[in-house]
């Protein structure tokens, strides 16, 4: 197993284009960082219930629920933050609202507030993440690490840039204070935003755009995680029909013209694809950020697969 010290931050924000496997990477990181008796919290904020689906669980309630145990008595808890619940909790915590809070919900105020002012909604969501990250119990941090399965690359800058959003609306008051607190946590060395990508054009382009955006916002970018990477085959980079024919014959397999041309064509397409992947890998490397490559898991993502990915992440 690797070492959590390779991932020293306390809040790990994981983003990536849709379909790159950011939820799986976030979950694997939460598992890895919980090894050896540590406790981590895996958070999702978009109501997708992606964590529950990944772990084969019923939809998660708005509660920090244990979803996995690890070596040495470690555990991963998961939380699906719901903006309404977060608002009510927030009101309760700061204003002891009780019945008034429920009245607010009844008149649709919460729906209203979270609909009309998305900045406020995001402040509530990130505010909850901040609360969990900085929570302590008996003088110790409650969570050793919090891993946020964040909105995809196209929206992550706006989501994390809460101050700018709310500053336009709330110039003073508790919401302003709350968003300032979130903003300073997100810009501190306690936080890293990791970007998950595939070696495909669109995800790489969006990753580059998101990294530029986050950098401009002074939000610390952590690693670039290349997901679904494939083992290097055909290192010489070329293949001929004659070779394939000889090889098939040597293996005692059919070596008709049809078989030979199909297999050769497949190999050629693979090489074309790999060339493109290589140029994308170079583009990512030019960012100068630490990169981790995770393999495509042939059996799909299950708990064993997540453990495998967790080990690779922690060793990197």
């Amino acid at each position, binding site marked *: 197993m690797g070492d959590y010290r390779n991932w020293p931050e306390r809040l790990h924000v994981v983003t990536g284009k849709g*379909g790159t496997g950011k939820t799986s990477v976030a979950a694997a990181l939460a598992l890895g960082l919980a090894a050896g008796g540590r406790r981590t919290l895996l958070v999702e904020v978009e*109501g*997708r219930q*992606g964590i529950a689906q990944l772990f084969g669980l019923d939809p998660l309630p708005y509660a920090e629920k244990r979803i996995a145990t690890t070596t040495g008595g470690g555990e991963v808890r998961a939380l699906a933050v719901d903006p309404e619940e977060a608002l009510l909790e927030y009101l309760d915590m700061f*204003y002891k609202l009780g019945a*008034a809070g429920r*009245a*607010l919900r009844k*008149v*649709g*105020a919460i*729906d*209203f507030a979270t*609909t*009309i*002012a*998305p*900045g406020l*909604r995001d402040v509530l969501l990130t505010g909850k993440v901040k609360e969990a990250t900085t929570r302590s119990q008996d003088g110790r941090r409650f969570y050793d690490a919090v891993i946020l399965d964040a*909105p*995809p690359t*196209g929206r992550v800058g*706006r989501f994390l840039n809460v101050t700018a*959003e709310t500053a*336009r*609306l*709330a*110039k*003073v*008051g*508790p*919401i*302003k204070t709350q968003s300032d607190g979130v903003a300073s946590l997100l810009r501190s060395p306690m936080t890293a935003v990791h970007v998950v990508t595939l070696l495909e*054009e*669109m995800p790489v*382009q969006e990753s580059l755009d998101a990294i530029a955006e986050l950098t401009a916002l002074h939000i610390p970018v952590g690693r670039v995680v290349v997901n679904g990477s494939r083992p290097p*085959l*055909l290192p*010489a980079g070329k*293949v001929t029909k004659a*070779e394939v024919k*000889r*090889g*098939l014959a*040597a*293996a005692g*397999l*059919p070596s008709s013209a*049809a*078989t030979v041309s*199909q*297999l*050769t064509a*497949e*190999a050629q*397409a*693979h090489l074309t*694809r790999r060339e*493109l992947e290589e140029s994308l890998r170079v583009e990512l490397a030019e960012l100068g950020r630490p990169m981790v490559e995770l393999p495509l898991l042939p059996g*799909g993502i299950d708990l064993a697969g997540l453990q495998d990915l967790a080990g690779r992440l922690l060793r990197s």
Partner: protein
Amino acid sequence: MADLTAPRLDVDGLLSDPAIRIVVCCGSGGVGKTTTAAALGLRAAEVHGRRTVVLTIDPARRLAQSMGLTELDNTPRQVKGIDPASGGELHAMMLDMKRTFDEVVEQHTRPERAAEIFANPFYQAMSSTFAGTQEYMAMEKLGQLRAADEWDLIVVDTPPSRSALDFLDAPARLSRFLDGRMLRMLLAPARAGGKSMFSLVTASFGLFSRTVQKILGAQLLTDLSGFVAALDSMFGGFRQRADQTYRILQDPQTAFLLVAAPERDAVREAAYFAERLVTERMPLSGLVLNRMHQAEPAGVTAEQAEAAAAELEAAGDQAVTADVLRIHAGLLRQTEREVRVAATFTDAFPRVPATAVAAQPADVHDVDGLRTIGALLARPAA
């Protein structure tokens, strides 16, 4: 070929049908929705001679450039490099969310009121970043394009939402929002002609507004009341338009195509969407599965290939063929896996026709590439 069990989607039948005026492509992010929309539009124009416009929301830069789209300017531009033989035309446009919103405001209110609205910080936040504004405005634009009646066919690419359902929910959510009690409370004093609506709100809603004020702060609430009051004049028109667009979507002139990639999440999202379309009585025409691998054994099964690759490797020569066999086995396994994933949809919706588009070795970013995708979409059943 390991093909889908669903009936084959007749793409050419759909694109050539003069009764079909709108094709809506929906699905989760990253499944190739924009490419599919553009390829369908191109085929409708080139093969079926229809005057077509493609409304894209957030196209990849290179794809946009290849269609001559350089700005988000809400103006349909004719795409160059298409075959004019059939008499069709292809135009494309990118949605400018803020400008569309501004236009709606201008259309429904007096110029002084519009200026007030534009200056309000809530309007600025809502029109440029409101989660959902993109959906509303895509619907609004679609309604405008349809009302202009200049096009034989409008192909819409839906926004890359958190969920594919947001697009469908936009009009209903808008209506609900406008009917909300909260909104009416904030509006009540303004409607009564009160000047200082905030103090009136305070007077009539004691605990409630004290609470709101405490949380939001007085300045924010003043801005909010101003915004709501300013918008009030145009809400009726706004909702009417949203309802109209909703009815167009239910009409048989519209065809919904679900777009998915053979991945668990994307297929699950497509299934949710299909259920919703059925519930809303919206015309679901078919499923497009992008990026399907369609490898055939060609005499060598995955098991044989894997075993032979191991043998050849152990023997020490024929390393190239060993890798070629691994690639072959990988493709066959992937094909099997994708068909299995796709089956979760086709089993649940056995009567929804489907078409599969083979994975391309490189991304599409020119008209030739779109033409190829169009031909694959319309490929007759094997």
